[in-house]
């Protein structure tokens, strides 16, 4: 599986952020009780370029009030970094699937499946750009690596994929993890703009999941209330 770094310069502008969101409003002084869980997300990557540890994010979010709790820390920027890592993983996975399709490794790929992967990849890239824009505007490095543990799991699963249905199943797993995580974040995010951004991506990821369910022959709306079972927070 490719883990190439997305080229941020190729990512189009993101409408929600352009439409008046003041990224500085993401900065909140956070006293998150769930700091350890947030740190799991923020520290998910082994990459040297990965943006923030929980503690680093807390430093920024608290305007200089460094949180020193071991393994803890948190705040909206930590969640933003964790979300960006998930988006990197999604972009890379869809990119790898498209590469495999182009190489003929997946057999005959129906046009609707190819269109899905192309569009979903772009939309996850836009979501990644949005989170990285938030991080950059707050003096944090952009996230370019996925969470290492999840990447390993996805790579192992991808190695077993031999057809479009396998791609759809893997994609559904990723979309579910992402949308459940964004829903879970609603109770933790302090900034209103951060919550709206997270929800606006949850919105689209759930739509991806509905179409993937349909493609796989499953009922497209399987839950009455979306759960957080697959959240990584």
């Amino acid at each position: 599986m490719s883990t190439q770094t997305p080229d941020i310069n190729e990512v189009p502008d993101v409408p929600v952020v352009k439409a008046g969101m003041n990224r500085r409003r993401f900065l909140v002084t956070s006293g998150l009780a769930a700091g350890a869980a947030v740190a799991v997300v923020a520290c998910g990557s082994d990459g040297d370029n990965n943006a923030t540890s929980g503690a680093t994010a807390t430093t920024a979010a608290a305007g200089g009030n460094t949180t020193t709790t071991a393994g803890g820390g948190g705040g909206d920027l930590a969640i933003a970094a964790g979300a960006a890592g998930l988006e990197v993983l999604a972009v890379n996975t869809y990119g790898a699937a498209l590469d495999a399709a182009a190489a003929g490794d997946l057999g005959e790929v129906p046009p609707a499946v190819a269109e899905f992967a192309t569009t979903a990849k772009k939309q996850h890239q836009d979501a990644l750009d949005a989170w990285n824009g938030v991080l950059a505007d707050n003096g944090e490095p952009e996230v370019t690596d996925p969470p290492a543990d999840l990447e390993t799991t996805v790579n192992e699963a991808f190695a077993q994929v031999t057809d479009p249905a396998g791609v759809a199943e893997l994609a559904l797993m990723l979309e579910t993890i992402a949308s459940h995580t964004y829903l879970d974040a609603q109770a933790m995010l302090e900034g209103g703009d951060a919550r709206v951004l997270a929800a606006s991506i949850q919105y689209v990821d759930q739509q991806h999941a509905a179409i993937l369910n349909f493609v796989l022959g499953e009922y497209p709306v399987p839950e009455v209330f979306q759960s957080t079972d697959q959240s990584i927070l």
Partner: protein
Amino acid sequence: MSIDDRALGELLTESNDLQVDALRVNREVQPALADIGASRKGRPVDLDRVRSVNTERRRILRNGGFGMGALAARGLLGGAFGAAVLNIVARPVGAQENVDVMILNTASSLENLAVAAYGAALELPFIKNGNAVVKAFAETTMSQHEEHSAAFNAQAVALGGGEQNETNPKYTPIVEDATPGLTGPAKVVDLAATLEEVAADTYLANMGLLDDAETRTLMASVMGVEVQHLATLLAVKALLAADAGDLIALPPDLAALPAAAGSVGFPESLATPDMASPPEEGAVQ
């Protein structure tokens, strides 16, 4: 149309099981919510919060939110209805009102309208006797909206407010006006998609307005379901428009689906709440 009725039935049963689980969880947290609500009763009004909501409200209006532009573009706004809608949208939040409860009441009003609309659609001959997948979807979706309304009402009561059992005052006349024109599945799907988008956009906008974390989680959870209704309806709408209604089946004939079916269900990378209803629109008076 090719459809595996037994498989569809199994999927719906599975969906119902998930529904039962979700309701159980919801009931389990209600006592805690009631305690929170009791502790908040009689609490002084937070004027800063009222100001904050009204500021956010103006921002959404400036950005074309609260559905006005989108409704006009769809030909659903004009004349006396337009004036009535504008009156509702123009009313700011007052200092005496509990914003979270108003938001929950408005959400229930939208859910109640969706229940009524799907119920009416299921009486139409071309739905009742039409595509089995579309009919099953309408029945299941109506039931899901009923559960959403009940959950929002329970939450409103838990926070010290009242239940909203009426349909949304802004969209009810619009739906009633549109009903005689529902002469085929495509028009029904179009109207249903509009109602789903209004609900989902409203809940999305509310993530920036809601004070109570439990309410936010509940509303975002429902939003996650409404957007799946919307994506499904957009895909169905596209297939009907392409005269490919026979492809609306479970499981689908993947190879025969047009490429657009793979992307029409999610037109935006980041959803914008341009069809959102304002907090007080469906508040209990």
